[in-house]
Every structure is written in structure tokens, then in C-alpha cells.
């Protein structure tokens, strides 16, 4: 029965992944990251993603800080933060976040402050969604590993 639990969790994980792919939240670069995970580096994906979360939140705070300035004009600086966020989002396969960054960058190219504000809101929203979903994914993965681990001693063949 514990084995069945592990299998069900595996199915849940795959269902969630498939959903995220279908929604365009993740792309094949995320799969590439999973391919880089093995016994020698069993937590690679969560390690990289956690670094990404940490960096992204800093960048998002910087972006909001800049836009909230009364005398805001430093579109170039905003562009730098944005490029960093876009680069790392693309590196982990966060497709929707990357796309919103692109739209955001277009707004900075045109010095369009209200466009930037709208894009930032969308970016914050997409980022939150991504973070929640990835946490969910990692939770299921953790449970699955636990369930699969306990399975072997009670296996009867």
C-alpha cells in the first residue's frame, strides 16, 4: 500500500508538471534541469530553483523600489535588473515569467512608466504563481521519495 502511495504521488507530480507545461508556465528548460539531477546531485533542481527565488525576489523589490520613486527616471537601471531576471527565469524554464519580462522591457525601452507599472504587477503575479506551483511540485516529490523509501522493507516477493 505504501508502494501504491509512491506511485500515486509520482502520478500527481507528473500531472502537475504536465499542467504547468500545458499552461506555458514551464518549458523544456525545466526538463533539462531535471536531467541534470542524479544520485551525485539529488537536489539539484530545488537548489537552483531556491537560488532563483532568492535572486528574483531581490530583483523584484529593486524594480518596485525604482518605479515607486517620485522622481523616477532611471529606465536603464531598471533594464539591467530586468535583464538579470529574464536571464535567470529563462535558465530555469520559467516561460511565462520570461515573457512578461520581455513585455516589461519593451515598456522600459519606450520610457513608458505606466506600462512598466502594469508589467511589474503582472510580473509579481506570475512570479507568485510560479513559486507556489514549484513549491507544490517539490512537496509532492519529497513525499514520493519518502513513500518510495519506506516501500522496500515491506516488499514481499
Amino acid at each position: 500500500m505504501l508502494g501504491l502511495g509512491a506511485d500515486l504521488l509520482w502520478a500527481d507530480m507528473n500531472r502537475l508538471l504536465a499542467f504547468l507545461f500545458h499552461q506555458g508556465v514551464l518549458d523544456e528548460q525545466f526538463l533539462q534541469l531535471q536531467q541534470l539531477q542524479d544520485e551525485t546531485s539529488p537536489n539539484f533542481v530545488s537548489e537552483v530553483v531556491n537560488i532563483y527565488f532568492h535572486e528574483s525576489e531581490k530583483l523584484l523589490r529593486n524594480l518596485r523600489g525604482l518605479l515607486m520613486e517620485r522622481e523616477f527616471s532611471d529606465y536603464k537601471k531598471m533594464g539591467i535588473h530586468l535583464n538579470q531576471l529574464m536571464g535567470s527565469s529563462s535558465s530555469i524554464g520559467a516561460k511565462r515569467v520570461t515573457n512578461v519580462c520581455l513585455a516589461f522591457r519593451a515598456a522600459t525601452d519606450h520610457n513608458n512608466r505606466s506600462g512598466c507599472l502594469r508589467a511589474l504587477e503582472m510580473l509579481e503575479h506570475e512570479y507568485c504563481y510560479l513559486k507556489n506551483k514549484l513549491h507544490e511540485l517539490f512537496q509532492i516529490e519529497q513525499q514520493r521519495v519518502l513513500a518510495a523509501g519506506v516501500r522496500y522493507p515491506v516488499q514481499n516477493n
Partner: protein
Amino acid sequence: MAGGEVLRQNLPEKLEESPSGANELHVLAVDDSLVDRKVIERLLKISSCKVTVVESGTRALQYLGLDGDKKSSIGFDSVKVNLIMTDYSMPGMTGYDLLKKIKESSVFREIPVVIMSSENILTRIDRCLEEGAEDFLLKPVKLSDVRRLKDFIMKGEVKEGEKRCCKRSRSEDCSPSPMTHPCDSSLLSSLSSSSVLSPLSPSTLSSKKSRL
């Protein structure tokens, strides 16, 4: 080619088997993004390369001993790098600046330098290739990119070995190093015509190989 095959059989398989791992490819990777450093490091390790990752062009030059303070040859003897992979957009010294510095160095100009960028800008790619970059990879970099790069570099190392063996057994000079070559117009045109998304596409690889 029969000649090449005979030579290869007579060569000790320097790069293939070595218990000490001393003949693993040593790659120096340069990127200001921590996420990207983690990924490229893993890509290279999983491809059985020895990896040194640094966060800037300045650090890369320091590592190589090229930072201008002490151009000591001691640095070169202890640092053997087979490939340098650098991000293009970095604060301060860009990947392009780093590429130029390396190609200006008599000691390190033979090392292949690959530029990585998330931007598919043709003028940028051309600039880098003209400056002597071995290749230009579009980010995010994949395992298949690293594998193809590694194969390409390893073949170059074998040919270097052949050249050395050739010099030992005969007194006449062999052909120049396969690793440095001027920008090839056929390579550029193949890049311009196809989507530049994977410069290491079979067509560009074969055009490079034909020049070796």
C-alpha cells in the same frame, strides 16, 4: 582518411583513459548570474569535465594570471584550461572584452573561447566570431550544446597530439593549429541563413570540421 587513422592508432589514448583524470577537459566558465553559474557547472560536470566557475571577466583574468599585475609564467604552468565559456552581458568587463584580452595574450590565445548569450543578435554574434570566438551559444545552454562542444574540443586536442607526435617523428613542420582559424565566410552565411538559435547545428559544425 587512412593516414590520420594510422597516426591515431599509434598515439597513446591521452584523453580517453587516465586514472588521475589529468586529461579531463578543464573548462573555465564565466557568468555574473549565480543561477547560470550553477547550471553551467552542472552541465559541464555531468559531461565529465573539470570545471572552474568565476563570476566576472576580471576574476577570469586573475585565474589565468593575466590580470597584468604579475604576468608570471608560473600561473600558466599550474593553470591548464582547455576551453573558456563566457556570458556576453556582464557588468564591467563584458564577455567580448574578455575574449579580446584572451586573444591578445600570446600564452592563452590558443584556448577556444565560447560566448553565451540570451540575445540572438546577429551583429553581436558576428563581432564575437570575428574577434576569434570558437562559437556562440544561445542561452539557455543545454546538455546537447555542451556535448557537441566537448566532442569538438576533444577532436582538436587529439589533432594537437598528432601534431606533436608528427613533430617528434619527422623534422618538417606539420599544419598549423586547428584551434585558431580566421572567421569563415561560409560559417557566417550559414549562421545568417538558418535560425541562429543553435550555432552548433550540424551544418555549421561540418563547415568548421571541413576547415580543420
